[in-house]
C-alpha cells in the first residue's frame, strides 16, 4: 500500500509491502525490513535490523500521535487516493489559520480586532480553562480575518476563536 505522510508541511511517501510479521516499508527512499508484533491495536513491538522499539500509537482521523522511547511524534498519514482528493480540493494549510480551543473555557480578554495586522507570536485572546489563564498566540504573521467570540463567552472544545490570514 502507498501512503503519504505530512510532517511540518512536507510530504513524505511511505509504502508497505510484505505480509505477516515481516514487512518491507519504504519511508522516502529508505527501506526498512520490519518484524512487527501487535500486543493490542495501539501497542506494537518493532524489531528493525535488530533494533527494538516499543511503539504506542494514537490515531484520530488522519492524525497520528506516536510515542517511542518517551519521545512523541505527530503527523498526518493517509493513503494515496485520499492524498489526491486532498490536493484537488486544495486543502492546504498555507493560507488562513484557524485558532481553536481544545477544551471548554471562558474568554477573558480579546486582544485584537478584525482587520488588525499581527506578527507570529503576538497575543490574540486570553482563555481561562482549568483555573489558568492562557494567552493564545498567532501562529503566523498576517491579518485578523475573523473573531468568533466575545469577552465573557463560555466556549466549548473546538470552538473557533480567531482566523489569521
Amino acid at each position: 500500500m502507498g501512503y503519504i505522510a505530512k510532517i511540518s508541511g512536507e510530504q513524505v511517501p511511505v509504502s508497505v509491502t510484505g505480509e505477516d510479521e515481516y514487512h518491507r516499508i519504504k519511508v522516502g527512499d529508505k527501506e526498512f525490513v520490519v518484524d512487527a508484533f501487535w500486543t493490542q491495536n495501539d501497542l506494537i513491538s518493532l524489531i528493525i535490523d535488530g533494533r527494538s522499539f516499543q511503539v504506542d500509537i494514537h490515531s484520530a482521523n488522519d492524525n497520528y500521535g506516536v510515542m517511542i522511547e518517551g519521545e512523541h511524534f505527530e503527523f498526518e498519514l493517509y493513503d494515496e487516493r485520499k492524498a489526491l482528493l486532498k490536493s484537488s480540493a486544495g486543502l492546504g494549510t498555507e493560507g488562513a489559520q484557524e485558532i481553536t480551543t481544545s477544551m471548554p473555557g471562558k474568554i477573558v480578554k480579546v486582544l485584537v480586532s478584525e482587520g488588525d495586522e499581527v506578527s507570529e507570536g503576538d497575543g490574540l485572546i486570553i482563555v481561562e480553562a482549568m483555573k489558568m489563564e492562557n494567552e493564545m498566540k498567532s501562529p503566523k504573521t498576517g491579518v485578523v480575518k475573523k473573531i468568533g467570540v466575545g469577552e465573557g463567552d463560555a466556549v466549548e472544545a473546538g470552538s473557533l476563536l480567531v482566523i489569521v490570514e
Partner: protein
Amino acid sequence: MFKKVLIANRGEIAVRLIRACRELEIPTVAIYSEADRNSLHVRCADEAYCVGPPPSAQSYLVIDKILEVAEKTGTDAIHPGYGFLAENPEFAKLCKDHNITFVGPSAEAIEMMGHKTVARKTMQNVGVPVVPGTETVDDDDVLASRAKEMSFPVMIKAVAGGGGKGMRIVREEKEIKEAIRAARSEAKSSFGDDTVYVEKYLEEPRHIEFQILADRHGNVIHLLERECSIQRRHQKVIEEAPSMALDDDLREKMGKAAVDAAKAARYWSAGTVEFLVDREKNYYFLEMNTRLQVEHPVTEMITGIDIAKEMFKIAAGEKLSISQEDVKMNGWAMECRIYAEDPFNNFLPSPGKILTLREPSGPGVRDDSGVFAGYEVPLHYDPMISKLCTWGGTRTESIQRMKRALGEYVIKGIKTTIPFHQRVMNNEKFLAGNIHTGFIEDECIMETSDDSEDLMNVALVAAALHLQRKSREGVGTAGPEKTGTDAWKMMGRRSRWVT
C-alpha cells in the same frame, strides 16, 4: 489512633493519604464531586460520598456538607490534603467545634501563617530575615506606585496565595496594572480573597524550603531541605532533596531558622518553611505552608520518614518518636510533577480520557498517581495527575533513574509534561545544579530538540502498519473527513519532525 478518617480532598493526594491510613489500618471516607465519581480516590477509599456538583466552590469547599458526611459516618478525624480547605482556619476551627480532629496545625497557626504579611512580621520578630516588601493595599493605583518606589522587578502576591496562583512578576512599569488585575482575579477565584501585596523580586534566587515536624507537646524538628527552584509560572514542577546549594553549615543555620519559625507560630503537625536563597547564599523567609506539601515524597525518600503517617500520629496526640539527631540524610531524591498539559503547546491543559497507562517501576522509583487507564481527566481541577519520584545514592543516580523512569512512563489519550521533564533531565545547567527560579524561562526548555530523525522514521513505519491494518479491517478510513479542530490540532507552534 483514629477510628475513621475522612479525606477532604481528591486526586493523587487523596490516594496518598488513603494509602497512609491503610498502612495504619484506619478506615477511610472519601468525598467526591459529581465530576469525580470515576476517580481513583473514590475506588481506593473504604467509603465514598458525593458532596456536590463539579465546581469546587459547590463541593470540595463546602464545609457544611463535608462535616455532615463526617458526622454521618462516625469519622473522628479529617485530613484536608493540600489546596481546597487545607489552609482554611475557619475549617480547622469548625472541625474542632464538631469534636473532629483536624489533621493539621491549629486554626490560629494557619491564620497567622496564611496571612503572608502577618507571617512576615512574625518572622522578623524572631530574627528570621525576610524579603523586602509592602503591606497589603486595596487600591490598585496606590499599590502600583508603592511597587514603583521599590524599583523593578517586583512580585505581586496574593496574601492568601499558594501553589503559584495569584502571583505575577513585573519587570516594567507599564505591566504593573495588568499584573495586579490578573493576580487579584486569580487569587479571587482560587482562594476567594483578592488581597495582594508587593515584594521585591530577587534575581535568579533559589527556592529552598525546610520540612518541619512538630508535635502538640512543643517538640519541633526539621527533616532537612528541599530545593524547588524549577518552576513554571511560579509553580514548582521539579523538586529535589537535598539541595546542592547548601553545605552542612548553611543547612544547620537555615534548619534552625525554620524550627524557630515554627516555634514562633506555636506550630504543630507537618509544615514547610520556605526561603529564597540569593547568589551570595543569603536566605530570606518567603512563607510558611501550614499543610502537607505536594513535594513531600522527596523528603520521605531521603529520610525514610513517612510524613503523612506522622501527621496522623501527631494529630492523635502522640509525641514525636524521632529527635533531630535521628534525622539522617540518605542519598538523593528527585520529583517530576506530571501534568495533563501539552508542553509543545504552551502547556495548555489537556483534559480527556486516559486510554493507556503504563507506570514506571523497578529500583528507586515511586509514582504517586491519581489516575488509571479508563479515567477521564476532568477539566474542573488542577491538571496534575501524578508525581514521579526517583531515589539514588547520588544526585547523578537519581537523575539517571528519572530519565529511565520517564522513558518507561506511557500515558496515552492526553498530553502530559513528560517530554518537558525529559528535556530538563538532559539540560547541562540542570545537571550541574546551576538552577534558579527563572531557569525554565531562561533555558527555553521546550525549544531544544533531540536530533532523532531515525525515531521519526520508526514512527512512520509503525503508523503505516497501523493504517494498513485499520483499512483491512475496514474501519475508520472510508468515512467522511471530520472538519475543524481535533485532538492533534497544532496551534501557535511549528510542527515537529522530531521532538
